[in-house]
């Protein structure tokens, strides 16, 4: 049985140029961007750093597939130019897991949310942001997450967020 590579190709060895003008912290690591300051953060993450967990879906901030956390808040990276992201702390789906899975990730597995899986990183980042603001979200709070899922996983997303809220509360105790 042939092996298919399970990870994207190695990152390009040119992201960090120490003297470049735009410093940015991504998943706790410092980088500098010396290209077009108008380039959206999404393409820096994907094309330069090869952090491909953050997805392209529309390019206009409508679908939410590209959602990342900037200083802890959910933001659409496809409409966030590098000059706006500079000097901020970015967390992507790859940076969510620290020693163990984040409770939202854990809940996503337990509730078997994913179908095609493409939008799920964005959904998870939006849920992390929501739960930081509203540790006990009600149905309407959950429905403020406006990310598209073409597979229609919304009912299980609702259940996963409720479960994640419980996991997070039990961890805090």
């Amino acid at each position, binding site marked *: 049985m*042939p092996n298919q590579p399970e*990870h994207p190709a190695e990152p390009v060895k040119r992201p960090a140029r120490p003297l470049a003008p735009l410093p940015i912290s991504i998943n706790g690591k410092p980088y500098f961007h010396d*290209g077009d300051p108008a380039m959206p953060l999404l393409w820096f993450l994907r094309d330069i750093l090869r952090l491909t967990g953050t997805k392209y879906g529309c390019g*206009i901030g409508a679908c939410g597939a590209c959602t990342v956390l900037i200083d802890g808040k959910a933001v659409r990276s496809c409409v966030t130019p590098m000059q706006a992201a500079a000097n901020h702390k970015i967390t992507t789906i790859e940076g969510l897991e620290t020693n163990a899975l984040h409770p939202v990730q854990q809940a996503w597995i337990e509730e078997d949310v994913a179908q095609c*899986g493409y939008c799920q990183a964005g959904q998870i980042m939006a849920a992390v942001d929501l739960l930081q603001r509203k540790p006990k979200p009600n149905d309407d709070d959950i429905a403020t997450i406006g990310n598209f899922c073409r597979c*229609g996983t*919304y009912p299980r997303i*609702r259940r996963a967020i409720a479960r994640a809220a419980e996991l997070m509360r039990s961890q805090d105790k």
Partner: protein
Amino acid sequence: MSADAITTVNAGRRRFLAISLTASGALLVGMRWAHAEPAAANLPPDLLGDELTELGPFLRIERDNRIVIGARGCEIGQGVMTSLPMLIAEELDVDWSQVRVVQLPYGYVETDKGPSNRYGDQGAGGSTSITDGWKELRQAGATARWLLVQAASRDWNLPAEQLRTESGQVIAPDGRKLTYGALARSATSIAPPEQPVALKSPEQFRIIGKPTRVADARAIVTGRSHFGIDEYAADALVAVIARCPYLDGTLDSFDDAETRKVAGVKDVIAIPGPKPDEPLGGVLAAGVAVLADSTWAALKGRELLKVKWKQGPWAKESTNALAAVANDLLDKNEGGVAVRNDGDFAKARKQARQVIEARYEMPFLAHATMEPPAALIEIRQDSVLLVASLQSPDGASELISQLTGIARKDIEIRMTRAGGGFGRRLKNDYVAEAVLVAKAAGKPVKLMWTREDDLQHDFYRPFGVHAMAATLDRKKHITGWSHRCAATPRNYRDAGMKSRPIYTGCLEPDDFPAGLVANLDKTFFSVASGMPRGWWRAPIHTFHAFAVQSFIDEVAVATRQDAVKLRLDLLGEPRKIPYKGHGGPTFDTGRLADVLKRCAEKIGWGARRTDGHGIGIACHFTFGGYAAHAFEVSIDGSDLRIHRAVCVADVGRVVNPLGLEAQMIGGTIDAVSAALHLAITVKDGQVQQHNFPDYPLLRMAQAPRNVEVQIVESTAEPSGAGEIGVPSAAPALANAVYAATTVRVRKLPLMPELMRML
């Protein structure tokens, strides 16, 4: 697996395999059983253990008894990366917790008998993965188990019949145990069985039928899952294409001076479009490709292109005009193609006590997969590598071979998880574009589509108008049924459909209520259009079930009959009636009646409502499966509130209940999404929608909070489930809207039409 390893298979084994081919049929074509190799030095040891052994094409057994199962299908969200390995694991008799699943690449091989695939059918379409896998993959697992038992039998010098297996171990009558990991190497020296080995009886199942989570969920939730669009190669240029916005238009001229000034832009290449009326087997439109060292540079460069297009033959096409033509054809009732005629509908009409008529209009729909089309391709001297999200790797392989002249055996295709399919990826136009651009550039290319590209250039679900008529006698029995459809045929510039009737993909001859009404007339009228058309999830069935299941509701209302009872009366006694379409050869009226009755019961059908809520119901047979939907809705100003959504499905024996429930929830919401808001329209020969604001998929706030799914327990042969969750949802919703408002919506999308009518 290295090429060297393949050549080490000895001649004796080959002769034996040839015998086993004739004995056990297609399953073993191209399969290599029983091959051992030391752990490849370049792979991390913790991944593979200290030794691995392959038993057949799907299975790798590690020394420490971890089992790696290859998933052969295109995973587009329908769950085959979990359900297909479950079939193998069941017959192999291992614990699911021992199993790790890996995606297999495309397995094209050339044999003495011609082209084949070492893994069987890998495509995704028509809800066939489970049906095919049910036979082939269980046999693959059972054959590997058989080899392991034979190996233990030889080791212990005990008859194989006395040995049993459990949790990846062979167990002797005296309690001695050997793990598969310990036996695997020895098993490779055993000749495969000449006959198919016996499979488990359903009472013995320990994996099939158990709720099982997505096998690679951890990779998905950590962002490590790898979709086609996530593939990069160090020396590949990113390409985006400015495509002609006019249907079958052509490139007149372009000025790329500003484009070439963008830092990172490397090349600009014109791509010729298809000739009008030639099959759309390659690229979909003429275009100008911009190649750059990053996606952003390519996009910026494309924006600065100055392109002049020639409008082509369809410059005046518009949706309004198509609707007018369709209605005119139906009014004149001339030039139609007979789809099915039973009895004498015209006579039934003359003799009828009552005739009820209505027309329904269905829009073009785009697929809008969350992952837009993309492809990474590297064309070398005499080989090709493609990495892409696909539904038809066979089609991709053929197309690349045609366009490059390189033999199919030298085309490597790595399959990835696909960010949705819904039929879009049955077309490989994006692969063709990547090949043409890479050939012209002489470099590997990563082709990217934006959402605008995707909505503007798709193979849309056909547009059409359905004219329905029912005749009734004095006892309100339906004596005649007429279904005339005027549509832009799905069978359009598609070489693969050349020999099939023009109505294929728009009107199914044997669908409900065919065979249940004495006088039946089904006729198809072609509406000429330049819009490319393709398969859209449960294709034909979403297209016409809305008309059939809305109309039966209208007949019930007009004749003051109960809409459930009217359907049940038509279905009559449980029996199997002939069904020639996909999903046949028979259609079981009893199974459809059963899901309808269960659905009615679950939603509380028949209870008098005083709260302004309305309940609607519908049912449909699709690709071997049976489903019914019911909704409870109310209208609040300009909002439609969905209070309850119920879906009952009978797909025969269930492989993964958790996955099946996901498909029914997802299919229902997908159908609601399309029915409420989605339409692709044409004006002046151009598609009018550009991005999600014009094509607003349902968001969580608008979706039903839950879809209550009930699965019918069945011992019937399993059918697929990727599509059956869709067709009956839209008519059930429209019927519920009627029950709540007495406004009958006969044109989709529903919301704009409802707001116009209220």
